[in-house]
């Protein structure tokens, strides 16, 4: 009983992930985002070793404009601290908060969403009402309450951002689970004797990952903006430099020193843009049909 024609033989197998990676490399948005993010990371991680200036130290006259003095290329803030050093050191904490909050958001969201979507019924009702409860709370206010209740360290800030932003991920995960749980391969997995846990994490979740990965990259971008917002309002960690904090500190000097807020603003913009572009590229890579438009 030979079935396949010979031309079918000797094909090397291609995993779906490899194909996504290939498609991603062809998307200019994704690659541009990756380059942007790479540059930001190099700036923040290698910067401290090349430009060795303490961001907390007063080194020159307050509000020195950029370019006026050779050793303070981007000028100084209202206390006379070096802006460039601030950008370098602020980046690491901004990225840290973004990543931790992003991971937390995805973890809670996926956990709640998958259990709700898989089991349905009363479990779904209960979890979705809980999700809606978190969703209708004004996110920024709720995060502010959380941060003020505890000491405003960057860990508390990250956790607070994670706690207010998981509902969207939970709903997305639930929607994917509702779609996939009725597909035949889920029934087939059950018919070989797989238990619920296995079906949730090993059968359905891997198939629901595409939109979740896209949403994860966007979530990190949003978390960074959120952190900037909190720091701007003075609720960030006072002992750690961050871009949002720099903007917050400079807000009263907008008219006298545009550079105190423009440069950190630009950094936030570039970083969030980087994450968004990567999200876009991934989205295109996961949905080849959309790419043709």
């Amino acid at each position: 009983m030979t079935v396949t024609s010979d031309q079918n033989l000797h094909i090397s197998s291609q995993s779906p992930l490899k194909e996504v990676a290939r498609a991603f490399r062809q998307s200019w948005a994704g690659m541009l985002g990756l380059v942007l993010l790479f540059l930001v990371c190099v700036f923040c991680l290698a910067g401290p070793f090349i430009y060795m200036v303490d961001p907390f130290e007063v080194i020159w006259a307050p509000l020195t404009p950029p370019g006026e003095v050779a050793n303070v290329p981007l000028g100084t803030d209202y206390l006379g601290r070096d802006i460039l050093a601030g950008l370098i050191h602020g980046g690491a904490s901004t990225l840290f908060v973004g990543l931790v909050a992003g991971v937390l958001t995805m973890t809670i969201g996926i956990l709640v969403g998958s259990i709700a979507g898989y089991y349905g019924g009363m479990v779904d009702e209960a979890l979705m009402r809980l999700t809606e409860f978190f969703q209708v709370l004004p996110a920024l206010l709720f995060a502010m309450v959380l941060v003020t209740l505890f000491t405003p360290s960057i860990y508390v800030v990250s956790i607070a951002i994670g706690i207010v932003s998981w509902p969207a991920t939970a709903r997305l995960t639930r929607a994917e689970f509702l779609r996939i749980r009725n597909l035949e391969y889920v029934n087939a997995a059950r018919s070989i004797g797989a238990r619920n846990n296995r079906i949730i994490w090993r059968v359905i979740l891997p198939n629901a990952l595409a939109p979740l990965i896209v949403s994860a990259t966007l979530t990190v971008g949003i978390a960074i903006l959120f952190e900037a917002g909190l720091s701007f309002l003075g609720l960030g960690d006072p002992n750690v430099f961050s871009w949002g904090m720099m903007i917050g500190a400079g807000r009263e000097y907008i008219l006298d020193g545009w550079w105190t807020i423009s440069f950190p603003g630009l950094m936030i913009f570039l970083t969030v843009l980087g994450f968004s572009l990567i999200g876009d590229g991934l989205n295109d890579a996961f949905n080849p049909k959309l790419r043709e438009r």
Partner: protein
Amino acid sequence: MSVVLDVKDLVVDFKTRAGNARVLNQVSLDLREGEILGIVGESGCGKSMTALSIMGLIPNPPGRITSGSISLDGQELTSMPAAKLRAIRGNRISMIFQEPMTSLNPVFRIGDQISESVLLHQNVSKKEAWKRAVEMLELVGIPEPAVRARSYPHELSGGMRQRVMIGLALACKPKVLIADEPTTALDVTVQAQIFDLLKNLQEETGTAIILITHDMGAVAELADRVSVMYAGHVIETGSTRQILDDPRHPYTRGLISCVPHLEDNPGDERPYLEEIEGVVPPLTELGTGCAFAPRCKHVMDRCLTTNPVIGRVSQQHSVACHLLKEKELA
């Protein structure tokens, strides 16, 4: 031959908005060791539901096994705790689904999926499970199984995927295999190959097969015995010869005459396909009479009021129709 799987008076209800739907009503089937039992009937008559109830995969809620028994080798399945049932599924009973295109998980290699089934039921290492997967692929006629095991489902054609599904279902050498319309989604030449494969494997492994299908031709060729279902009832059961040559129930006769014949009408005035008038009634609106009565050519007063019970035509052949009694009287 001993009975492997015995389904007795199985009743399955589904709660729907329109009311209670009795999707299976007093269904009785028996599957003997090493045989192929065909289950035929039109869409919505309860064939797939029978398969799912045997597997214990009825979506609950809304579905529920109300009464009756399903026993595998003398072990009652309907009252078995979920964990024990899981150990049986895929191991001693397994199932092939209608749609090979969607019944394999797209993100895992086919070798992984077959090994998973082996790993779930047998205490073997991953390596051994993989070896078993490759053996299964070879058994179901996939060329270069060692290479192919590393393929993802989207790299295979429909027929190949159905072969993989069959390999997956047989990986633990089950006693019973339920094939739910295994070829509906495939084209005709591939259908024939899959049926051949099932027949060969059945002879090789001795697995008893329940073959659910619309295809009377496939039944004629493969099945040892046939059960005909209508609106949740088994209305006629017999050996394949008895059902095809001497169908007793008007519905069975209708089904058989619906099969078009190539040698028909060379110039003769019958260009139309035969059909059974009407459709399967909504299961929420079944009354006390015979469910087929509204579509039956031989309908009698009795048919509208009482549901016929199963009666014997011969030792192997039984039918649920008032006509049977009528003939005995005559």
